[in-house]
């Protein structure tokens, strides 16, 4: 078996920052808690449930990686599932990185077109962001981690300031009646945000490079819990400001909220804060995905240096971002349940379930034969 070879290292704090920014960026972009289900005023509860499940999923991904601390998911998928099925799973995981990077970038490009630059073609924004992400991936995960660490305080501050600016416009009545319609509507809004947690697959690629080693699993799990808590707060403030109907009907509810409030007579416009935070998060997430995807493809294709794959992978991301979604309608439709959650469950959930099952079976067999040997 060909093991991943790299001298690059990344701190667990940087990984947690990247995961936090990556999830928060996508989730605040079109706020799937509100736009993909019928949780309405209970979207915050859906966010908490999705957060709990995502934390569990993060533990599943990071926990398996911790069993093979020197291997990437590409390595141990082949070890656990055999060469053929392992390669199929590896390809699926590579496709996940492509999908996440391309879709995140396309969402950002749509935001730019719809809200700020209606005459600028999608391809221009897409290529600019893909170029930036690929450039960062080319330089490696260390600069990406350091950049993410530098961006994180600004990211958090900008999101917090947007929420603070909107807070005076919160009408608590918009959040009522709370939890009055039973679990059905709440769970309808859980699946898409949970599926967006597919981003945690990157932990399986980056795990061998993380340091300190004893905090690797914890950083992935904490990032899931914190980002989900932020998501629940965002959903509550958003519904409190816009109401259930306007927020669920908006294409970009977070931006709509930021544009709809006037915090003071002197500070009238605050949407730039959220948009800049979004850009920072997209850079951190997009570059990490391009890096992980390039490394995964390099391992599958047995290319020694993953950097050589970055331009090709970046080109694939750009093509996917531009051509996989005809327009904003298709982009929104892509995330709609049950299609998107099912797709992720089949392509990520089932492989991880199989890998865990294989790991447990191997462990039991080894213990069984170990006892017999004694």
């Amino acid at each position, binding site marked *: 078996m060909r093991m991943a070879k790299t001298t690059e290292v990344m701190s667990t704090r940087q990984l947690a920052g990247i995961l936090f920014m990556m999830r928060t960026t996508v989730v605040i972009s079109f706020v799937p808690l509100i736009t993909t289900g019928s949780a309405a005023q209970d979207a915050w509860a859906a966010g908490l449930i999705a957060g709990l499940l995502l934390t569990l999923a993060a533990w599943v991904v990071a926990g398996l990686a911790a069993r093979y601390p020197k291997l990437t998911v590409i390595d141990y998928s082949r070890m656990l599932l055999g060469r053929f099925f392992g390669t199929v799973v590896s390809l699926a995981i590579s496709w996940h990185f492509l999908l996440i990077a391309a879709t995140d970038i396309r969402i950002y490009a749509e935001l730019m077109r719809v809200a700020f630059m209606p005459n600028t073609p999608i391809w*221009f924004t897409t290529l600019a962001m893909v170029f930036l992400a690929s450039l960062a991936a080319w330089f490696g995960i260390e600069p990406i981690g350091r950049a993410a660490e530098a961006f994180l305080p600004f990211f958090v501050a900008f999101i917090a300031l947007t929420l603070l600016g909107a807070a005076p416009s919160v009408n608590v009545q918009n959040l009522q009646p709370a939890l009055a319609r039973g679990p059905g509507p709440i769970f309808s809004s859980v699946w898409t945000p949970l599926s967006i947690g597919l981003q945690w697959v990157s932990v399986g690629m980056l795990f061998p490079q993380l340091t300190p080693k004893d905090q690797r699993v914890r950083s992935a799990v904490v990032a899931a819990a914190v980002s989900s808590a932020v998501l629940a707060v965002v959903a509550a403030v958003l519904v409190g400001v816009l109401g259930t109907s306007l927020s669920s009907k908006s294409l970009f509810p977070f931006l709509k909220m930021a544009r709809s409030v006037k915090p003071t007579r002197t500070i009238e416009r605050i949407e730039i804060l959220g948009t800049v935070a979004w850009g920072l998060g997209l850079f951190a997430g997009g570059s990490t995905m391009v890096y992980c995807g390039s490394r995964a493809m390099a391992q599958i294709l047995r290319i020694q240096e993953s950097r050589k794959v970055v331009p090709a992978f970046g080109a694939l991301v750009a093509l996917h971002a531009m051509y996989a979604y005809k327009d904003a309608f298709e982009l929104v439709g892509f995330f709609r349940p049950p299609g998107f959650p099912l797709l992720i469950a089949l392509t990520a959930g089932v492989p991880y379930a199989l890998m865990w099952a294989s790991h447990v079976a191997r462990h039991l067999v080894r213990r069984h034969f170990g006892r017999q040997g004694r």
Partner: protein
Amino acid sequence: MRLIAALAALFMAFSAAGCWDRKEPDDMVFAVALGFDIDEDGDYVAIAQFANPMAAKAGVGPTSQPAGSAPFWTNCAKGRTPFDALSNLSPALSREMTVSNIEVLLISERLARRGIAPIMDLVARDNELRLAVSAAVVDGSLESLLESQLPEDPIPALAIQRMLNPIHFIDPSAMSPGLLQSIADMLRPGQDLLMPVLRLNAGAGSESGTDSTSPGSPVTHMGSAAFHRDKMIGWLDGHESRGANFARSRSQHAPISVQSPAGGLVSIHITHVESTITPRCVDGDVSMLIRAKVEGHVQAQTGLDQGQAGVNFADPESLQHLRSRLAQCVREDIEHALARSKQYKSDFVGLGNAIYRRLPQVWRAGVGERWYELLPDVPVQVEVEAALTSSGLLRESLHY
């Protein structure tokens, strides 16, 4: 590596230039107010007021100087949709129009009665228009209002915006909820919209009015327009508006004059209102309890002539009397608002929404579907608790 860095810098420089969406301020004209009307043929009419900052700075009146040096001007166009009408303003302009800086959105009575959903849809959908602007229904000619000069400000849109958004001074009429609140009210179950009204005063818009040495304001912000869903149903006067705002906790500052126990009137400045609407359902019969707490201070009194001493604020009985009269006045305002709500079948107080929020099972069990049939017959009990915080800067009245 250097080549890549150089290419990256070049690429960044190109993208920073803005390319396709660059807009030079010199090539743009900024609308500061936007009005929508509808004509007899059902075509939308868009009226935009544009600011001329150079003339506004010089303090030139709109009609005393030749065209081009006025602080503002208006333009009007028609279209089959609100966006058509808005777009049709452009052919008459030499610069690109932008509506991202509008201060107020005004809607004519005729359009309000026809339905404002298309206007709200445009505002919520457009990438330049914002829900943070103030909105009002105009009682009178919308075009005349937008062409009128207001004495406080060379650009009328700014004066209207300030008129609709009083900060701390007393305003007995509806506070401007802003477009965001308006849309939220329209979309909320069991709640109807109440929009502020701008009434055009007699003679407004005429040239003689602006030539006067002491021109009064051509417009008054008084009362509200009640809606059912997106259609205006009727007007509310100042007292009814105030009552509706008391019931919805949306009014903070209001003047109320009550009978003084010592004769004459005592004016009380209400500074704080907090209300709750509690729905009850007993054996399928819905009833409501509105409980309001108001707080204010004494601002003035009459009946001080002929040697009368006025109210003795140290006397607990006199204070109790004033409190109970204040509570009665607030209760009457709320009851007037409720009577109008039942007459119009417009739930601008939000009684239905209180059921939806606090008794969701009852709302879903059929009350929600039949709410507007039930509304006129729903018994509403109003309880008001009034508090006086001070007698202003005087402990006793001045009398002669």
